[in-house]
């Protein structure tokens, strides 16, 4: 295995261990996702929305809940790096900020994927809109959208973690940058729920893919400068 590969796998293993040893973090994040869907169900389902109405608001609900829960997860992700300034040590000793970033992106992506499944599961259980016909495609869209979300989120979480008001700073900086991705995700999800399929060459799907590629590439390059400062 190459040196970069060895460093990457060591960092991913370290992150997975760290997440596993903080079960309250996993429980709190998934609990937040489930509770948000339940609150949304009270806001819409309980006031007599029909199945068609519920399907119409589903894209917005899913992505809003995902956005808020994702920010909670990203905020947590850099806390172990900040305690005892571990990230500083790792960056210095590895000499490879891009590998450190990509390892962090990978574990954040895996965790966010679990969060996404929790959001979709909670939606199925509590919201009442029937997604079973398009669930596989729905999960695929969610996982593709998460690439860009985690790319930008990981970079900005590294910036926010050094601030005392990190819980506020991260969404304030991240959300405006995510508007194209969020809009794309909502439109593609709406298309899926209304037609049962998506147009892979359609504007919104292409926008999501381009956003993913650009944000991952730019964040990998910028992380070195973020880390240095």
């Amino acid at each position, binding site marked *: 295995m190459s*040196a970069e590969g060895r460093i990457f796998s*060591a960092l991913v293993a370290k992150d997975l261990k760290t997440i596993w040893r903080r079960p309250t973090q996993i429980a709190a994040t998934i609990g937040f996702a489930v509770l948000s869907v339940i609150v949304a169900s009270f806001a819409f389902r309980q006031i007599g929305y029909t199945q068609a109405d519920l399907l119409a608001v589903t894209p917005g609900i899913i992505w809003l809940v995902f956005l808020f829960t994702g920010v909670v997860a990203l905020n947590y992700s850099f806390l172990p790096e900040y305690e*005892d300034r571990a990230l*500083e040590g790792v960056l*210095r000793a590895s000499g490879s900020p891009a590998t450190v970033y990509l390892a962090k992106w990978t574990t954040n992506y895996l965790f966010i994927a679990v969060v996404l499944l929790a959001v979709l599961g909670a939606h199925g259980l509590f919201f009442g809109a029937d997604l079973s016909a398009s669930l596989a495609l729905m999960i695929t869209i969610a996982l593709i959208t998460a690439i860009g979300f985690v790319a930008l989120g990981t970079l900005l979480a590294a910036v926010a973690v050094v601030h005392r008001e990190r819980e506020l700073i991260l969404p304030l900086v991240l959300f405006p940058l995510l508007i194209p991705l969020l809009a794309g995700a909502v439109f593609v999800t709406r298309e899926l729920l209304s037609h049962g399929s998506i147009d892979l060459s359609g504007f919104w799907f292409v926008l999501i893919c381009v956003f993913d590629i650009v944000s991952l590439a730019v964040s990998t390059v910028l992380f*070195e400068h973020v880390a240095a400062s």
Partner: protein
Amino acid sequence: MKPMAHVSLDGVSKAFGFVPALSNITFKAGRGETLCFAGENGAGKSTLLRCICGLLRPDTGKILISDKDVFSASARRTLWKQIGVLEQGASFFYEDLTCAENLQLYAKFSLGENDEKQVLRVLERVGLSQSRVQRFRELSGGMRKRLALGRLLLQSPTVLVMDEPFAHLDEAGEEVLLEMIEEYRCAGVTIFYASHRIDLASRNADRVIVLEHGRIVDTAQRGNISSDGSETLLQ
């Protein structure tokens, strides 16, 4: 003939707001040389060490290691790996990982294969083999310092920067550290450390640089360092 400078500082100044922390610091250190910075609290010792290892960018002046600017982009990728850092306020470890896991992570960066055996040897040497499965957050201050020494042992630094390395260490720990300093010195590593322990500095430092209000006010060569830490540091 004077030894070639491995590390050189030229006109380094740093201020925090309007408070000057370092003023026009200039000196050179050769390979295998050990420099101790002495001075009262707030004299600028820690700030100077943080500048040397690239953790803090000075406002003016240049810091070169092997003729490379410590703050250049290429230095971040190559040079920083060669600088071993022992900080006072942080050990650069993960609180949820055990002693062995933390060292294994650092071993992966520098050693590659056979890192587990090496980690066990290092834990033995710093006296933490019994605590290898203890998580970092459960360690005492002295044990954390010992583990940080273990991290340095796994690296192959060419420059070693240590802030109050003897703090929190018991006598056995001090001996391990003094041995390490001697070994690194013999291997040609340039060592900088800040300490109030002039008695220990007199045993291993080639030069003691005395700082006051961010300025160098005195320098003593080996042999001229008083071991009692009194005001007669420079004779």
